[in-house]
Protein backbone atom coordinates (compact mmCIF):
# COMPACT_ATOMS: atom_id res chain seq x y z
CA UNK A 1 0.00 0.00 0.00
CA UNK A 2 1.55 3.25 -1.10
CA UNK A 3 1.47 6.60 0.59
CA UNK A 4 -0.86 7.93 -2.06
CA UNK A 5 -3.29 5.09 -1.49
CA UNK A 6 -3.30 5.65 2.24
CA UNK A 7 -3.85 9.32 1.71
CA UNK A 8 -6.73 8.56 -0.60
CA UNK A 9 -8.33 6.37 2.04
CA UNK A 10 -7.93 9.15 4.56
CA UNK A 11 -9.49 11.68 2.20
CA UNK A 12 -12.37 9.30 1.58
CA UNK A 13 -12.79 8.87 5.31
CA UNK A 14 -12.82 12.60 5.89
CA UNK A 15 -15.34 13.14 3.09
CA UNK A 16 -17.75 10.57 4.36
CA UNK A 17 -16.94 11.52 7.94
CA UNK A 18 -17.96 15.09 7.35
CA UNK A 19 -21.27 13.89 5.99
CA UNK A 20 -21.83 11.89 9.15
CA UNK A 21 -20.70 14.82 11.28
CA UNK A 22 -23.29 17.08 9.71
CA UNK A 23 -26.02 14.67 10.66
CA UNK A 24 -24.58 14.15 14.14
CA UNK A 25 -24.48 17.89 14.76
CA UNK A 26 -28.17 18.04 14.01
CA UNK A 27 -28.87 15.67 16.88
CA UNK A 28 -27.17 17.86 19.47
CA UNK A 29 -29.67 20.70 19.76
CA UNK A 30 -32.74 18.59 20.33
CA UNK A 31 -30.80 16.31 22.62
CA UNK A 32 -29.37 19.15 24.66
CA UNK A 33 -32.82 20.60 25.15
CA UNK A 34 -34.95 17.52 25.65
CA UNK A 35 -32.71 14.45 26.00
CA UNK A 36 -34.60 13.09 23.02
CA UNK A 37 -32.67 11.47 20.18
CA UNK A 38 -34.53 12.55 17.09
CA UNK A 39 -34.95 9.50 14.87
CA UNK A 40 -36.16 11.73 12.09
CA UNK A 41 -32.90 13.67 11.93
CA UNK A 42 -31.63 11.70 8.95
CA UNK A 43 -34.91 12.39 7.22
CA UNK A 44 -34.30 16.11 7.64
CA UNK A 45 -31.05 15.58 5.77
CA UNK A 46 -32.83 13.56 3.11
CA UNK A 47 -35.46 16.27 2.73
CA UNK A 48 -32.77 18.91 2.45
CA UNK A 49 -31.14 16.94 -0.34
CA UNK A 50 -34.40 16.23 -2.14
CA UNK A 51 -35.64 19.80 -1.92
CA UNK A 52 -32.34 21.26 -3.07
CA UNK A 53 -32.12 18.83 -5.95
CA UNK A 54 -35.72 19.50 -6.94
CA UNK A 55 -35.38 23.26 -6.83
CA UNK A 56 -32.09 23.35 -8.68
CA UNK A 57 -32.17 20.40 -11.09
CA UNK A 58 -35.88 20.26 -11.84
CA UNK A 59 -37.04 23.84 -11.42
CA UNK A 60 -33.72 25.39 -12.41
CA UNK A 61 -33.63 27.94 -9.63
CA UNK A 62 -30.25 29.55 -9.04
CA UNK A 63 -28.16 27.68 -6.51
CA UNK A 64 -28.39 30.07 -3.57
CA UNK A 65 -32.13 30.33 -3.92
CA UNK A 66 -32.49 26.56 -4.21
CA UNK A 67 -30.45 25.91 -1.08
CA UNK A 68 -32.14 28.65 0.94
CA UNK A 69 -35.61 27.51 -0.05
CA UNK A 70 -34.62 23.97 0.76
CA UNK A 71 -33.37 24.87 4.24
CA UNK A 72 -36.50 26.92 4.84
CA UNK A 73 -38.74 24.07 3.76
CA UNK A 74 -37.03 21.59 6.05
CA UNK A 75 -37.13 24.02 8.95
CA UNK A 76 -40.86 24.38 8.36
CA UNK A 77 -41.29 20.65 8.42
CA UNK A 78 -39.37 20.54 11.70
CA UNK A 79 -41.72 23.19 13.01
CA UNK A 80 -44.78 21.21 11.98
CA UNK A 81 -43.34 18.08 13.47
CA UNK A 82 -42.82 19.76 16.81
CA UNK A 83 -46.19 21.41 16.96
CA UNK A 84 -48.21 18.44 15.83
CA UNK A 85 -46.39 15.61 17.48
CA UNK A 86 -44.00 16.48 20.23
CA UNK A 87 -45.90 19.40 21.69
CA UNK A 88 -49.04 17.36 21.89
CA UNK A 89 -47.56 14.73 24.15
CA UNK A 90 -48.95 14.97 27.65
CA UNK A 91 -46.91 16.92 30.11
CA UNK A 92 -43.76 15.16 31.20
CA UNK A 93 -43.96 12.17 28.87
CA UNK A 94 -41.70 9.22 29.27
CA UNK A 95 -38.56 9.54 27.25
CA UNK A 96 -39.35 6.30 25.47
CA UNK A 97 -42.63 7.76 24.21
CA UNK A 98 -40.95 10.89 22.93
CA UNK A 99 -38.31 8.96 21.06
CA UNK A 100 -40.95 6.70 19.58
CA UNK A 101 -42.80 9.81 18.51
CA UNK A 102 -39.81 10.86 16.45
CA UNK A 103 -39.80 7.42 14.89
CA UNK A 104 -43.45 7.90 14.03
CA UNK A 105 -42.55 11.21 12.46
CA UNK A 106 -39.85 9.50 10.45
CA UNK A 107 -42.30 6.91 9.15
CA UNK A 108 -44.80 9.59 8.18
CA UNK A 109 -42.19 11.78 6.51
CA UNK A 110 -40.89 8.86 4.47
CA UNK A 111 -44.35 7.72 3.43
CA UNK A 112 -45.32 11.20 2.27
CA UNK A 113 -42.00 11.69 0.49
CA UNK A 114 -42.52 8.63 -1.67
CA UNK A 115 -45.92 9.98 -2.67
CA UNK A 116 -44.45 13.36 -3.53
CA UNK A 117 -41.26 12.41 -5.30
CA UNK A 118 -41.79 8.93 -6.64
CA UNK A 119 -38.86 6.63 -6.26
CA UNK A 120 -36.24 7.88 -8.71
CA UNK A 121 -33.08 9.44 -7.34
CA UNK A 122 -32.22 13.04 -8.12
CA UNK A 123 -28.86 14.63 -8.65
CA UNK A 124 -27.55 18.00 -7.61
CA UNK A 125 -24.74 19.77 -9.36
CA UNK A 126 -21.65 20.36 -7.29
CA UNK A 127 -21.51 23.95 -6.11
CA UNK A 128 -18.18 24.78 -7.63
CA UNK A 129 -17.66 22.14 -10.25
CA UNK A 130 -16.33 18.62 -10.35
CA UNK A 131 -12.65 19.09 -11.08
CA UNK A 132 -10.89 17.06 -8.44
CA UNK A 133 -8.19 18.62 -6.33
CA UNK A 134 -4.95 16.67 -6.23
CA UNK A 135 -2.86 16.61 -3.14
CA UNK A 136 0.19 14.38 -3.17
CA UNK A 137 -1.45 12.11 -5.74
CA UNK A 138 -4.72 11.66 -3.87
CA UNK A 139 -7.87 13.49 -4.89
CA UNK A 140 -10.59 15.39 -3.15
CA UNK A 141 -13.75 16.81 -4.69
CA UNK A 142 -14.31 20.56 -4.43
CA UNK A 143 -17.71 19.99 -2.83
CA UNK A 144 -15.81 18.82 0.25
CA UNK A 145 -14.80 22.37 0.98
CA UNK A 146 -18.38 23.50 0.96
CA UNK A 147 -19.23 20.68 3.34
CA UNK A 148 -16.30 21.46 5.59
CA UNK A 149 -17.24 25.12 5.51
CA UNK A 150 -20.80 24.28 6.45
CA UNK A 151 -19.63 22.11 9.33
CA UNK A 152 -17.34 24.70 10.78
CA UNK A 153 -19.93 27.39 10.46
CA UNK A 154 -22.51 25.25 12.22
CA UNK A 155 -20.06 24.18 14.90
CA UNK A 156 -18.90 27.67 15.71
CA UNK A 157 -22.46 28.92 15.84
CA UNK A 158 -23.49 26.04 18.08
CA UNK A 159 -20.60 26.44 20.50
CA UNK A 160 -21.20 30.14 20.82
CA UNK A 161 -24.90 29.49 21.14
CA UNK A 162 -24.69 26.97 23.93
CA UNK A 163 -21.95 28.66 25.87
CA UNK A 164 -22.54 32.31 25.48
CA UNK A 165 -26.17 32.99 24.71
CA UNK A 166 -29.04 33.10 27.12
CA UNK A 167 -31.15 31.04 24.75
CA UNK A 168 -28.56 28.32 24.49
CA UNK A 169 -27.97 28.12 28.20
CA UNK A 170 -31.71 28.00 28.66
CA UNK A 171 -31.95 25.02 26.35
CA UNK A 172 -29.25 23.17 28.25
CA UNK A 173 -31.04 23.90 31.49
CA UNK A 174 -34.24 22.39 30.12
CA UNK A 175 -32.63 19.03 29.54
CA UNK A 176 -31.00 18.90 32.92
CA UNK A 177 -34.05 19.67 34.94
CA UNK A 178 -37.24 20.87 33.34
CA UNK A 179 -38.94 21.99 36.49
CA UNK A 180 -35.97 23.87 37.84
CA UNK A 181 -35.58 25.57 34.51
CA UNK A 182 -39.23 26.52 34.43
CA UNK A 183 -39.04 27.90 37.92
CA UNK A 184 -36.17 30.10 36.77
CA UNK A 185 -38.50 31.65 34.26
CA UNK A 186 -37.37 29.70 31.22
CA UNK A 187 -40.07 29.02 28.70
CA UNK A 188 -39.49 25.29 28.42
CA UNK A 189 -42.08 24.66 25.74
CA UNK A 190 -40.68 27.49 23.70
CA UNK A 191 -37.20 26.10 23.99
CA UNK A 192 -38.31 22.71 22.78
CA UNK A 193 -40.10 24.32 19.89
CA UNK A 194 -37.02 26.22 18.84
CA UNK A 195 -34.74 23.25 19.25
CA UNK A 196 -36.64 21.29 16.64
CA UNK A 197 -36.55 24.15 14.21
CA UNK A 198 -32.81 24.58 14.68
CA UNK A 199 -32.06 20.89 14.30
CA UNK A 200 -34.21 20.72 11.20
CA UNK A 201 -32.34 23.71 9.78
CA UNK A 202 -28.99 22.05 10.32
CA UNK A 203 -30.31 18.85 8.80
CA UNK A 204 -31.70 20.62 5.78
CA UNK A 205 -28.50 22.54 5.19
CA UNK A 206 -26.52 19.34 5.57
CA UNK A 207 -28.66 17.60 3.00
CA UNK A 208 -28.20 20.35 0.44
CA UNK A 209 -24.44 20.33 0.97
CA UNK A 210 -23.94 16.58 0.65
CA UNK A 211 -26.38 15.91 -2.18
CA UNK A 212 -23.81 16.53 -4.95
CA UNK A 213 -21.78 13.65 -3.53
CA UNK A 214 -24.42 11.25 -2.29
CA UNK A 215 -27.22 11.96 -4.78
CA UNK A 216 -30.67 12.68 -3.39
CA UNK A 217 -32.49 9.43 -2.76
CA UNK A 218 -35.50 8.65 -0.61
CA UNK A 219 -33.80 5.85 1.29
CA UNK A 220 -31.08 8.21 2.52
CA UNK A 221 -33.03 9.10 5.62
CA UNK A 222 -32.71 5.81 7.47
CA UNK A 223 -29.02 5.38 6.78
CA UNK A 224 -28.18 8.95 7.68
CA UNK A 225 -30.06 8.65 10.97
CA UNK A 226 -28.22 5.47 11.84
CA UNK A 227 -24.77 6.65 10.90
CA UNK A 228 -25.29 10.07 12.41
CA UNK A 229 -26.58 8.54 15.62
CA UNK A 230 -23.63 6.17 15.76
CA UNK A 231 -21.24 9.06 15.19
CA UNK A 232 -22.94 11.13 17.88
CA UNK A 233 -22.65 8.26 20.34
CA UNK A 234 -18.98 7.74 19.58
CA UNK A 235 -18.30 11.38 20.15
CA UNK A 236 -20.64 11.72 23.10
CA UNK A 237 -24.30 12.64 22.78
CA UNK A 238 -24.89 16.32 23.17
CA UNK A 239 -21.33 17.43 22.69
CA UNK A 240 -20.82 19.67 19.68
CA UNK A 241 -17.12 18.93 19.18
CA UNK A 242 -18.01 15.33 20.00
CA UNK A 243 -20.46 15.15 17.13
CA UNK A 244 -17.81 16.39 14.73
CA UNK A 245 -15.14 14.06 16.11
CA UNK A 246 -17.51 11.13 16.14
CA UNK A 247 -18.40 11.69 12.52
CA UNK A 248 -14.81 11.97 11.37
CA UNK A 249 -13.74 8.95 13.38
CA UNK A 250 -16.55 6.83 12.03
CA UNK A 251 -15.82 7.93 8.48
CA UNK A 252 -12.11 7.24 8.85
CA UNK A 253 -12.66 3.81 10.39
CA UNK A 254 -15.01 2.90 7.57
CA UNK A 255 -12.73 4.10 4.81
CA UNK A 256 -9.58 2.63 6.30
CA UNK A 257 -11.12 -0.76 7.04
CA UNK A 258 -12.64 -0.77 3.58
CA UNK A 259 -9.38 0.08 1.88
CA UNK A 260 -6.90 -1.78 4.02
CA UNK A 261 -8.76 -4.79 5.36
CA UNK A 262 -11.85 -5.73 3.42
CA UNK A 263 -14.68 -3.92 1.76
CA UNK A 264 -17.12 -6.63 2.75
CA UNK A 265 -16.37 -6.55 6.45
CA UNK A 266 -16.14 -2.79 6.66
CA UNK A 267 -19.33 -2.19 8.61
CA UNK A 268 -18.67 -5.07 10.96
CA UNK A 269 -15.24 -3.67 11.81
CA UNK A 270 -16.48 -0.14 12.30
CA UNK A 271 -19.30 -1.24 14.56
CA UNK A 272 -17.12 -3.61 16.56
CA UNK A 273 -14.84 -0.70 17.31
CA UNK A 274 -17.89 1.25 18.35
CA UNK A 275 -18.91 -1.44 20.81
CA UNK A 276 -15.37 -1.42 22.18
CA UNK A 277 -15.47 2.32 22.64
CA UNK A 278 -18.76 2.00 24.45
CA UNK A 279 -17.39 -0.66 26.76
CA UNK A 280 -14.43 1.50 27.65
CA UNK A 281 -16.16 4.84 27.80
CA UNK A 282 -19.90 4.36 27.86
CA UNK A 283 -20.68 8.02 27.42
CA UNK A 284 -18.63 8.47 24.28
CA UNK A 285 -15.31 10.19 23.74
CA UNK A 286 -16.31 13.66 24.75
CA UNK A 287 -19.48 12.83 26.57
CA UNK A 288 -20.07 14.09 30.05
CA UNK A 289 -19.45 11.70 32.90
CA UNK A 290 -23.01 12.18 34.04
CA UNK A 291 -25.02 9.65 32.11
CA UNK A 292 -28.29 11.38 31.50
CA UNK A 293 -30.26 8.61 29.87
Amino acid sequence: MTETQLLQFIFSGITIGCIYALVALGFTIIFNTTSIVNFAQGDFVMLGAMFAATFKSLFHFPLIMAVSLSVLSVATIGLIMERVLIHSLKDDPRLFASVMMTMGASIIINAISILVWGADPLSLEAFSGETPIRIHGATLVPQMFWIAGGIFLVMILLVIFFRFTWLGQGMLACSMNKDAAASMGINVKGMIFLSFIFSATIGGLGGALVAPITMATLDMGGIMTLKGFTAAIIGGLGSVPGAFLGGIILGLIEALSCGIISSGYRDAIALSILVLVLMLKPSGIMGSKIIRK
Partner: protein
Amino acid sequence: MQRKILPFLGIVLLIIYPLWLNEFLVSVSIITGIYIVLLTGLALFLGYGGQFSFAQAVFYGLGAYTSAILTTKYHVPVIAAFLAGGVLAGAVGYILSAPILRLRGYYLAVATLAVCQIFHVLVVEQFNITGGPTGVYDIPIFSLFGFEFKTAISYHYLVWVIALASLLFAKNLMNSRIGRALKGIQSSEEAAMVLGVNAFNLKTKVFVLTGVTGGLAGSLYAHYVSYISPGNFTLELSIWLVVILSVGGVRTIMGVVLGAAFTTVFPFLLGKYQNFNMLVFGLILVLVLKYMPNGIAGFLEEQVFRLVKRTRI
Protein backbone atom coordinates in the same frame (compact mmCIF):
# COMPACT_ATOMS: atom_id res chain seq x y z
CA MET B 1 -73.29 -23.95 35.15
CA GLN B 2 -73.82 -21.31 32.45
CA ARG B 3 -70.79 -19.38 33.54
CA LYS B 4 -68.51 -22.24 32.72
CA ILE B 5 -69.97 -23.06 29.31
CA LEU B 6 -69.50 -19.77 27.45
CA PRO B 7 -65.76 -19.38 27.96
CA PHE B 8 -65.38 -23.08 27.28
CA LEU B 9 -67.23 -22.72 23.98
CA GLY B 10 -65.10 -19.73 23.16
CA ILE B 11 -61.97 -21.74 23.65
CA VAL B 12 -63.25 -24.64 21.58
CA LEU B 13 -64.12 -22.18 18.83
CA LEU B 14 -60.64 -20.77 18.92
CA ILE B 15 -59.18 -24.22 18.62
CA ILE B 16 -61.22 -25.33 15.63
CA TYR B 17 -61.56 -22.11 13.61
CA PRO B 18 -58.54 -22.75 11.34
CA LEU B 19 -60.31 -25.68 9.78
CA TRP B 20 -62.62 -23.25 7.99
CA LEU B 21 -60.02 -20.90 6.68
CA ASN B 22 -58.38 -21.03 3.28
CA GLU B 23 -54.68 -21.67 3.06
CA PHE B 24 -53.73 -18.05 2.90
CA LEU B 25 -55.51 -17.20 6.11
CA VAL B 26 -53.97 -20.21 7.80
CA SER B 27 -50.58 -18.92 6.70
CA VAL B 28 -51.38 -15.56 8.28
CA SER B 29 -52.25 -17.41 11.45
CA ILE B 30 -49.03 -19.39 11.35
CA ILE B 31 -46.84 -16.34 10.91
CA THR B 32 -48.74 -14.62 13.72
CA GLY B 33 -47.97 -17.53 16.00
CA ILE B 34 -44.30 -17.40 15.05
CA TYR B 35 -44.21 -13.70 15.78
CA ILE B 36 -45.77 -14.29 19.18
CA VAL B 37 -42.87 -16.55 20.07
CA LEU B 38 -40.45 -13.99 18.66
CA LEU B 39 -42.00 -11.10 20.54
CA THR B 40 -42.62 -12.66 23.94
CA GLY B 41 -39.08 -12.52 25.23
CA LEU B 42 -38.55 -9.10 23.72
CA ALA B 43 -41.67 -7.78 25.42
CA LEU B 44 -40.33 -8.85 28.79
CA PHE B 45 -36.98 -7.25 28.12
CA LEU B 46 -38.53 -4.02 26.88
CA GLY B 47 -41.37 -3.78 29.31
CA TYR B 48 -39.72 -4.93 32.47
CA GLY B 49 -36.03 -4.81 31.76
CA GLY B 50 -36.84 -1.31 30.60
CA GLN B 51 -34.25 -1.52 27.89
CA PHE B 52 -34.14 -1.11 24.14
CA SER B 53 -32.97 -4.10 22.21
CA PHE B 54 -32.46 -3.85 18.49
CA ALA B 55 -30.88 -7.25 18.42
CA GLN B 56 -33.98 -9.41 18.16
CA ALA B 57 -33.49 -10.05 14.45
CA VAL B 58 -30.10 -11.55 15.33
CA PHE B 59 -31.67 -14.24 17.50
CA TYR B 60 -34.36 -14.83 14.92
CA GLY B 61 -31.68 -15.27 12.29
CA LEU B 62 -29.45 -17.44 14.46
CA GLY B 63 -32.31 -19.83 15.15
CA ALA B 64 -33.36 -19.90 11.52
CA TYR B 65 -29.89 -20.41 10.08
CA THR B 66 -28.82 -22.95 12.71
CA SER B 67 -31.88 -25.04 12.12
CA ALA B 68 -31.67 -24.65 8.35
CA ILE B 69 -27.98 -25.51 8.08
CA LEU B 70 -28.15 -28.45 10.47
CA THR B 71 -31.05 -30.00 8.60
CA THR B 72 -29.89 -29.32 5.05
CA LYS B 73 -26.16 -29.87 5.29
CA TYR B 74 -25.86 -32.29 8.15
CA HIS B 75 -29.21 -34.05 8.01
CA VAL B 76 -29.86 -33.55 11.69
CA PRO B 77 -33.45 -34.41 12.66
CA VAL B 78 -35.62 -31.31 12.63
CA ILE B 79 -36.63 -31.43 16.26
CA ALA B 80 -33.00 -31.49 17.35
CA ALA B 81 -32.11 -28.65 15.01
CA PHE B 82 -35.08 -26.68 16.30
CA LEU B 83 -33.89 -26.98 19.88
CA ALA B 84 -30.31 -26.31 18.84
CA GLY B 85 -31.46 -23.08 17.25
CA GLY B 86 -32.98 -21.92 20.50
CA VAL B 87 -29.98 -22.99 22.54
CA LEU B 88 -27.44 -21.36 20.25
CA ALA B 89 -29.36 -18.11 20.15
CA GLY B 90 -29.64 -18.13 23.92
CA ALA B 91 -25.94 -18.82 24.25
CA VAL B 92 -25.08 -15.92 22.00
CA GLY B 93 -27.39 -13.77 24.08
CA TYR B 94 -25.47 -14.82 27.16
CA ILE B 95 -22.11 -14.02 25.58
CA LEU B 96 -23.34 -10.65 24.41
CA SER B 97 -24.82 -9.69 27.74
CA ALA B 98 -21.44 -9.29 29.39
CA PRO B 99 -20.18 -6.43 27.27
CA ILE B 100 -23.51 -4.88 26.45
CA LEU B 101 -25.91 -5.03 29.35
CA ARG B 102 -24.00 -2.67 31.55
CA LEU B 103 -24.88 0.06 29.11
CA ARG B 104 -28.07 2.00 29.48
CA GLY B 105 -30.62 3.76 27.37
CA TYR B 106 -29.33 5.10 24.06
CA TYR B 107 -25.97 3.47 24.48
CA LEU B 108 -27.50 0.05 24.90
CA ALA B 109 -29.68 0.75 21.90
CA VAL B 110 -26.68 1.57 19.75
CA ALA B 111 -24.79 -1.47 20.99
CA THR B 112 -27.66 -3.79 20.06
CA LEU B 113 -27.95 -1.99 16.75
CA ALA B 114 -24.27 -2.63 16.16
CA VAL B 115 -24.70 -6.31 17.00
CA CYS B 116 -27.51 -6.55 14.49
CA GLN B 117 -25.44 -5.05 11.70
CA ILE B 118 -22.39 -7.13 12.53
CA PHE B 119 -24.50 -10.27 12.42
CA HIS B 120 -25.85 -9.27 9.02
CA VAL B 121 -22.36 -8.74 7.64
CA LEU B 122 -21.16 -12.06 9.00
CA VAL B 123 -24.08 -13.92 7.47
CA VAL B 124 -23.48 -12.30 4.09
CA GLU B 125 -19.73 -12.75 4.05
CA GLN B 126 -19.36 -16.23 5.53
CA PHE B 127 -20.95 -17.85 2.54
CA ASN B 128 -19.28 -21.18 3.16
CA ILE B 129 -21.34 -21.58 6.29
CA THR B 130 -24.46 -19.63 5.54
CA GLY B 131 -24.67 -19.61 1.78
CA GLY B 132 -24.12 -15.86 1.79
CA PRO B 133 -26.63 -13.78 -0.15
CA THR B 134 -27.90 -16.90 -1.88
CA GLY B 135 -29.36 -18.07 1.37
CA VAL B 136 -30.34 -21.59 2.36
CA TYR B 137 -32.96 -23.37 0.32
CA ASP B 138 -34.84 -26.66 0.34
CA ILE B 139 -35.18 -26.55 4.11
CA PRO B 140 -37.08 -29.70 5.11
CA ILE B 141 -40.55 -29.81 6.63
CA PHE B 142 -40.82 -29.94 10.39
CA SER B 143 -41.14 -33.46 11.65
CA LEU B 144 -41.54 -34.76 15.18
CA PHE B 145 -40.75 -38.42 15.87
CA GLY B 146 -41.66 -39.40 12.36
CA PHE B 147 -44.77 -37.27 11.98
CA GLU B 148 -44.31 -34.72 9.20
CA PHE B 149 -46.15 -31.42 9.50
CA LYS B 150 -46.86 -31.27 5.80
CA THR B 151 -50.17 -29.48 5.74
CA ALA B 152 -50.62 -25.88 6.71
CA ILE B 153 -53.21 -26.77 9.32
CA SER B 154 -50.92 -29.17 11.12
CA TYR B 155 -48.16 -26.57 11.15
CA HIS B 156 -50.64 -24.08 12.49
CA TYR B 157 -51.30 -26.22 15.54
CA LEU B 158 -47.61 -26.88 16.08
CA VAL B 159 -46.80 -23.19 16.01
CA TRP B 160 -49.68 -22.17 18.24
CA VAL B 161 -48.91 -24.80 20.85
CA ILE B 162 -45.43 -23.34 21.07
CA ALA B 163 -46.77 -19.78 21.02
CA LEU B 164 -49.21 -20.42 23.84
CA ALA B 165 -46.50 -22.22 25.77
CA SER B 166 -44.23 -19.21 25.55
CA LEU B 167 -47.00 -16.85 26.62
CA LEU B 168 -47.79 -19.09 29.56
CA PHE B 169 -44.13 -19.27 30.46
CA ALA B 170 -43.88 -15.49 30.37
CA LYS B 171 -46.94 -15.11 32.55
CA ASN B 172 -45.62 -17.56 35.13
CA LEU B 173 -42.26 -15.89 35.07
CA MET B 174 -43.80 -12.54 35.87
CA ASN B 175 -45.69 -14.02 38.78
CA SER B 176 -42.59 -15.62 40.22
CA ARG B 177 -39.83 -14.19 42.31
CA ILE B 178 -37.89 -13.27 39.20
CA GLY B 179 -40.90 -11.42 37.90
CA ARG B 180 -41.26 -9.41 41.05
CA ALA B 181 -37.59 -8.57 41.02
CA LEU B 182 -37.95 -7.41 37.41
CA LYS B 183 -40.83 -5.17 38.29
CA GLY B 184 -38.65 -3.78 41.03
CA ILE B 185 -35.83 -2.93 38.68
CA GLN B 186 -38.24 -1.34 36.33
CA SER B 187 -39.43 1.25 38.81
CA SER B 188 -36.04 1.94 40.25
CA GLU B 189 -32.91 0.02 39.57
CA GLU B 190 -31.03 1.62 42.42
CA ALA B 191 -33.70 0.87 44.99
CA ALA B 192 -33.92 -2.71 43.83
CA MET B 193 -30.16 -3.14 44.12
CA VAL B 194 -30.25 -1.82 47.67
CA LEU B 195 -32.74 -4.55 48.42
CA GLY B 196 -30.33 -7.18 47.18
CA VAL B 197 -31.50 -7.65 43.62
CA ASN B 198 -28.64 -8.22 41.21
CA ALA B 199 -29.92 -6.16 38.33
CA PHE B 200 -27.23 -7.21 35.93
CA ASN B 201 -27.84 -10.92 36.43
CA LEU B 202 -31.53 -10.42 36.07
CA LYS B 203 -31.20 -8.47 32.88
CA THR B 204 -28.88 -11.14 31.56
CA LYS B 205 -31.44 -13.83 32.28
CA VAL B 206 -34.16 -11.93 30.44
CA PHE B 207 -31.83 -11.18 27.56
CA VAL B 208 -30.99 -14.85 27.22
CA LEU B 209 -34.72 -15.53 27.26
CA THR B 210 -35.22 -13.16 24.35
CA GLY B 211 -32.48 -15.10 22.62
CA VAL B 212 -34.02 -18.52 23.20
CA THR B 213 -37.53 -17.50 22.16
CA GLY B 214 -36.15 -15.61 19.17
CA GLY B 215 -34.13 -18.63 18.10
CA LEU B 216 -37.05 -21.03 18.37
CA ALA B 217 -39.20 -18.63 16.37
CA GLY B 218 -36.51 -18.45 13.72
CA SER B 219 -36.40 -22.19 13.37
CA LEU B 220 -40.18 -22.40 13.05
CA TYR B 221 -40.00 -19.77 10.34
CA ALA B 222 -37.23 -21.48 8.39
CA HIS B 223 -39.04 -24.80 8.24
CA TYR B 224 -42.21 -23.08 7.17
CA VAL B 225 -40.93 -21.03 4.24
CA SER B 226 -38.19 -23.49 3.19
CA TYR B 227 -35.96 -20.66 1.92
CA ILE B 228 -34.18 -18.06 4.02
CA SER B 229 -31.74 -15.34 3.05
CA PRO B 230 -29.95 -12.54 4.91
CA GLY B 231 -32.67 -10.18 3.73
CA ASN B 232 -35.08 -11.80 6.19
CA PHE B 233 -33.08 -10.75 9.26
CA THR B 234 -32.31 -7.07 9.03
CA LEU B 235 -32.00 -4.16 11.40
CA GLU B 236 -35.23 -2.92 9.94
CA LEU B 237 -36.96 -5.97 11.38
CA SER B 238 -35.40 -5.42 14.81
CA ILE B 239 -36.59 -1.85 14.85
CA TRP B 240 -40.03 -2.86 13.65
CA LEU B 241 -40.38 -5.39 16.48
CA VAL B 242 -39.67 -2.72 19.07
CA VAL B 243 -42.04 -0.27 17.42
CA ILE B 244 -44.87 -2.78 17.12
CA LEU B 245 -44.57 -3.70 20.77
CA SER B 246 -44.87 -0.04 21.69
CA VAL B 247 -48.08 0.08 19.73
CA GLY B 248 -49.42 -3.18 21.07
CA GLY B 249 -48.29 -2.69 24.63
CA VAL B 250 -45.18 -4.13 26.23
CA ARG B 251 -46.50 -5.32 29.49
CA THR B 252 -49.38 -7.54 28.64
CA ILE B 253 -49.91 -10.80 26.87
CA MET B 254 -52.55 -9.19 24.75
CA GLY B 255 -50.00 -6.63 23.68
CA VAL B 256 -47.74 -9.33 22.30
CA VAL B 257 -50.64 -11.02 20.52
CA LEU B 258 -51.82 -7.71 19.10
CA GLY B 259 -48.33 -6.83 17.96
CA ALA B 260 -47.91 -10.16 16.24
CA ALA B 261 -51.33 -10.04 14.63
CA PHE B 262 -50.87 -6.47 13.51
CA THR B 263 -47.57 -7.24 11.84
CA THR B 264 -49.04 -10.04 9.78
CA VAL B 265 -52.45 -8.62 8.99
CA PHE B 266 -51.56 -5.00 8.44
CA PRO B 267 -49.91 -5.27 4.99
CA PHE B 268 -53.19 -6.62 3.67
CA LEU B 269 -55.61 -4.14 5.12
CA LEU B 270 -55.14 -1.20 2.83
CA GLY B 271 -54.42 -2.86 -0.45
CA LYS B 272 -52.19 -1.84 -3.24
CA TYR B 273 -49.62 0.71 -2.23
CA GLN B 274 -47.61 -0.03 0.82
CA ASN B 275 -46.66 3.55 1.48
CA PHE B 276 -50.27 4.38 2.21
CA ASN B 277 -50.04 1.55 4.68
CA MET B 278 -46.89 3.03 6.16
CA LEU B 279 -48.49 6.45 6.37
CA VAL B 280 -51.47 5.02 8.21
CA PHE B 281 -49.18 3.03 10.44
CA GLY B 282 -47.19 6.16 11.27
CA LEU B 283 -50.41 7.90 12.21
CA ILE B 284 -51.52 4.96 14.33
CA LEU B 285 -48.16 4.93 16.11
CA VAL B 286 -48.37 8.63 16.81
CA LEU B 287 -51.95 8.40 18.08
CA VAL B 288 -51.18 5.43 20.31
CA LEU B 289 -48.20 7.24 21.79
CA LYS B 290 -50.32 10.27 22.48
CA TYR B 291 -53.44 8.70 23.88
CA MET B 292 -52.53 5.20 24.96
CA PRO B 293 -49.31 5.22 26.94
CA ASN B 294 -49.64 1.53 27.70
CA GLY B 295 -50.22 0.57 24.14
CA ILE B 296 -53.44 -0.60 22.60
CA ALA B 297 -53.60 -3.60 24.91
CA GLY B 298 -53.17 -1.45 27.96
CA PHE B 299 -55.82 0.90 26.68
CA LEU B 300 -58.30 -1.91 26.07
CA GLU B 301 -57.70 -3.31 29.51
CA GLU B 302 -58.29 0.07 31.08
CA GLN B 303 -61.55 0.42 29.18
CA VAL B 304 -62.70 -3.00 30.28
CA PHE B 305 -61.72 -2.17 33.83
CA ARG B 306 -63.70 1.04 33.69
CA LEU B 307 -66.67 -0.84 32.33
CA VAL B 308 -66.47 -3.24 35.21
CA LYS B 309 -66.24 -0.41 37.72
CA ARG B 310 -69.23 1.31 36.22
CA THR B 311 -71.39 -1.78 36.22
CA ARG B 312 -70.63 -2.52 39.83
CA ILE B 313 -72.94 -0.92 42.28
